[in-house]
């Protein structure tokens, strides 16, 4: 940086000084990167202390969840002090200079598994998230029917991607564990594998265990890391296969001949598995590896290596062709599944930017409320990431410029002339532009889903760029004093930001209306279990979103989202009276039972909807009269009542009773 007093002494005008200052901050100057410890110096003392600290932190998290269930005032203090104790000391040690590679890797495992534990103890005996219920039902169906590709009314696209269910049921069959236990063991292994593979990937392209560990920490600041990628859902497996593929590909970059072919064999195996596991992860792998092949073709640096280019090209062809072939073979409904979400998200974001959002749009309902402290931490995390990206962007590019050109802006000129040593670094650096886009999507309600999913993949790039910024700018040559502490603290805040942005309410609390996992409690579960015990499994049921999940998961009922084609259940439940537009579809349908939860009438929906995100009159509070309108309809009987939840038998409408 240029000290201010030099301005007068050198006679530079303020504009030049400003330019020099900006150039010094965001420019491509590389310094530092020499603070990697020699191998075999792991400090077991630090490891032991941090394990004990994390163990204590997890106890505090559990105590906080317990207090939250009871509504105790101390819950927040217990829970968040546990989270801080879990994240901060471990992050500080991981980011510290001169720590052994093995120690960094162990502590990354410790932190990742602690964050997984943090997710599991929210509901320690059963799956609880919406997506988890969908996959739980599919896995249970697979265990029951002992065959794949069964119909899946709640997640039609899920039948095309059964890999998670295959692996979980394999564990159940081989071990005798319950589905929940088998799924949890699988997810724990996936979490550890993800962090290990991510570390190896960064290490191979950045050439530094320290930078790799810091990049992994930054990745943990992604809003999907703590919860979304730990759910019993196909993306949790997909993202692991994705990063493993990248790690193997990066490790093989300097291989030639048969060793490269062998690596390609493993990559093909992983890509084939990815193609049948998760659509978005497979799509991202195709984009990354396809773009990598293009960048390799464009690259001018060094002697042309035809074999390497062929290997990268073959990898890209496999990454693109295998998912397409699988979709073609299975007749996937992916475009109809993802298309409307992406289209609505883009339209909403554009309308928001242009200020042309209609007042009746979903955005007018407003986002669900989040406690101030959580919002502040998330915002601080985003600001720090933005700062890291701004100061790391050109430095990341400079890192891969020809070694002879490391002064001033020459490295960037070389990159513009297509001279770079590693296309992966260039590609990832450019992909980091996805971060502001994903944040922009997250600011809309309709596009939130897109922004959230984008984050999972964009953070591969964000991790690298921010790590370069920390190592080559913020810590620099001699990380002492504030240069040693401040970046490490910033990384801890970034990880905390990932936790606070992972969910509306990471801590367990009392029942809330239409709030997915916050709506799951004992009475709803008991009612679903009652249906299985007294009505048997497989009855055609419909209900609100939360109870649909309980009925499908615990009750093993056949859930209908639509009463008949084109008539959503929401219309029947939300109408004040059962008019012809609701009655006749109900008569024509094959639905056996309706489940009505009167708690829905006690508050507006937390997520903005009771039934589905696309339901009419979103956000409007339901009335008890509307829910109880089935009481006096001839042919409908009220077979179950617990004071809050009522089950109506509508088989009398179809002449079946």
């Amino acid at each position: 940086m240029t000290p201010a007093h030099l301005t007068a002494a050198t006679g530079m005008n303020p504009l030049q000084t400003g330019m020099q200052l900006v150039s010094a901050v965001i420019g491509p100057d590389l310094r530092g990167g020499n603070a990697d410890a020699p191998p075999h110096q792991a400090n077991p003392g630090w490891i032991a202390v941090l394990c004990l600290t994390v163990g204590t932190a997890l106890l505090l998290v559990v105590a906080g969840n317990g207090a939250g269930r009871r509504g105790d005032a101390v819950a927040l203090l217990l829970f968040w002090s546990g989270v801080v104790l879990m994240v901060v000391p471990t992050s500080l040690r991981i980011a510290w200079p001169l720590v052994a590679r093995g120690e960094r890797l162990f502590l990354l495992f410790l932190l990742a598994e602690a964050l997984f534990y943090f997710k599991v103890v929210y509901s320690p005996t059963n799956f609880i998230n919406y997506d988890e219920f969908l996959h739980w039902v599919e896995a249970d169906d697979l265990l029951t029917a002992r065959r794949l590709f069964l119909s899946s009314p709640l997640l039609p696209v899920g039948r095309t991607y059964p890999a998670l269910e295959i692996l979980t049921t394999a564990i159940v069959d081989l071990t005798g564990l319950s589905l929940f236990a088998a799924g949890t063991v699988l997810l724990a292994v996936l979490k550890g594998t993800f962090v290990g593979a991510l570390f190896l990937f960064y290490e191979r392209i950045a050439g530094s265990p320290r930078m790799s560990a810091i990049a992994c920490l930054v990745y943990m600041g992604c809003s999907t890391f703590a919860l979304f990628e730990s759910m019993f859902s196909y993306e949790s497996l997909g993202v692991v296969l994705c990063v493993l593929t990248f790690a193997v590909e990066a490790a093989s970059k300097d291989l030639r001949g048969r060793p490269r072919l062998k690596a390609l064999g493993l990559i093909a195996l992983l890509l084939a598995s990815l193609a049948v596991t998760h659509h978005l992860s497979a799509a991202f792998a195709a984009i990354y590896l396809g773009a990598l092949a293009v960048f390799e073709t464009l690259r001018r640096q060094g002697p042309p290596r035809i074999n390497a280019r062929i290997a990268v090209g073959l990898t890209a062809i496999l990454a693109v062709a295998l998912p397409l072939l699988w979709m073609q073979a299975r007749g996937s409904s992916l475009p109809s599944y993802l298309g409307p979400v992406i289209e609505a998200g883009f339209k909403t974001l554009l309308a928001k930017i242009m200020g042309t959002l209609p007042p009746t749009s979903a955005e007018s309902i407003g986002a669900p409320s989040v406690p101030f402290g959580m919002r502040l931490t998330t915002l601080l995390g985003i600001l720090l990431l933005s700062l890291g990206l701004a100061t790391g962007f050109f430095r990341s590019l400079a890192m891969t410029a020809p070694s002879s050109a490391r002064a001033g802006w020459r490295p960037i000129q070389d990159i513009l002339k297509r001279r770079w040593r590693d296309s992966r670094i260039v590609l990832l650096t450019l992909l980091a532009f996805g971060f502001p886009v994903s944040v922009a999507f997250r600011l809309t309600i309709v596009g939130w889903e897109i922004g959230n999913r984008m984050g999972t993949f964009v953070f591969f790039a964000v991790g690298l760029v921010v790590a370069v910024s920390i190592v080559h700018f913020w810590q620099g040559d001699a990380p002492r004093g504030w240069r040693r502490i401040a970046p490490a603290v910033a990384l801890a805040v970034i990880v905390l930001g990932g936790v606070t942005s992972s969910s509306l309410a990471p801590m367990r609390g009392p029942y809330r209306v239409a709030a997915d996992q916050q709506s799951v409690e004992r009475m709803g579960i008991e009612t679903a279990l009652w249906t299985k015990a007294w009505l048997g499994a497989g009855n055609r049921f419909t209900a609100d979103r939360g109870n649909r999940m309980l009925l499908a998961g615990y009750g093993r009922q056949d859930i209908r989202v639509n009463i008949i084609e084109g008539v959503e259940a929401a219309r029947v439940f939300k109408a004040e009276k059962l008019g012809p537009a609701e009655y006749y579809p109900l008569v024509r349908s094959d639905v056996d039972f309706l489940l009505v939860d009167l708690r829905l009438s006690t508050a507006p929906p937390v997520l903005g909807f009771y039934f589905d995100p696309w339901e009419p009159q979103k956000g409007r509070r339901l009335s008890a009269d509307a829910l109880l309108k089935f009481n006096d309809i001839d042919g409908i009987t009220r077979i179950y009542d617990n004071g809050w939840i009522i089950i109506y038998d509508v088989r009398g409408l179809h002449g079946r009773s």
Partner: protein
Amino acid sequence: MGVPSNRDLLAACQWAGATVAVVALSDDLLLRTILGAPMVFLVSGHAVLRAIGVRTIYLSEHLAYAVGASLAAGIAGGFALNAAGVLTPLGWAVWFFAVTVGATLVAAARRDAADLPAWPGPVRVSLWQGAALALAVLVATGAYALAVREEATDRQFKYTELWMLPPASGDPSRLTVGVRSGEAQTQRFDLEITLDGRPFAVFRSLTIAPGGSWVREIPVPVMPTRQKAEARLYRPEDNLLYRSVSTLVPHI
């Protein structure tokens, strides 16, 4: 590049064979978990890695790739067993055995097999460090047990369930009526049953403890026309209608 020993592959085959035997002969959860889980996560993938001949530098790298290859083997197994119609416990055990043995044979036949990465050197752990690690595991395990207990005892809503089910198709003259308590204290109820609005049966002072239930099958006359049966649950202390349910009695 030296020729690596094949002892690891032999051990993998023995592990896979033991898994087949245990899955076929034993229901012991612990034994099956100890043998079965590593088959899905590591053993088969290690053999596949050796068969492909991928060279790894670090143990962590080999483990990560082995997990990935195992997952791939498991996913492929799902499709293969589905096609063969044997998605069963024994089918899975045989699949992983076949993959492991097949990969071992390929690896053993290779002339250009890659060296296995070296194990990291032993880390000296002092007594207090070992004690701290053990304590950390204990605290985390205890905390999980506490979380399970918290969930088991968590009952935000206190409620009583009343239900009335139509006659089963086999016996059209019997209704099922049930009451189950999810209240905090023992409760007393009166239950009245009507048929098409006419009093049919009354049960006085049903005393139900928390978690307890009362279920009866009630014979009803089957008529030429469909009847509506209703059950009403009252609390005697305030004579308040507490719950009401209904069902249809089919005609002859």
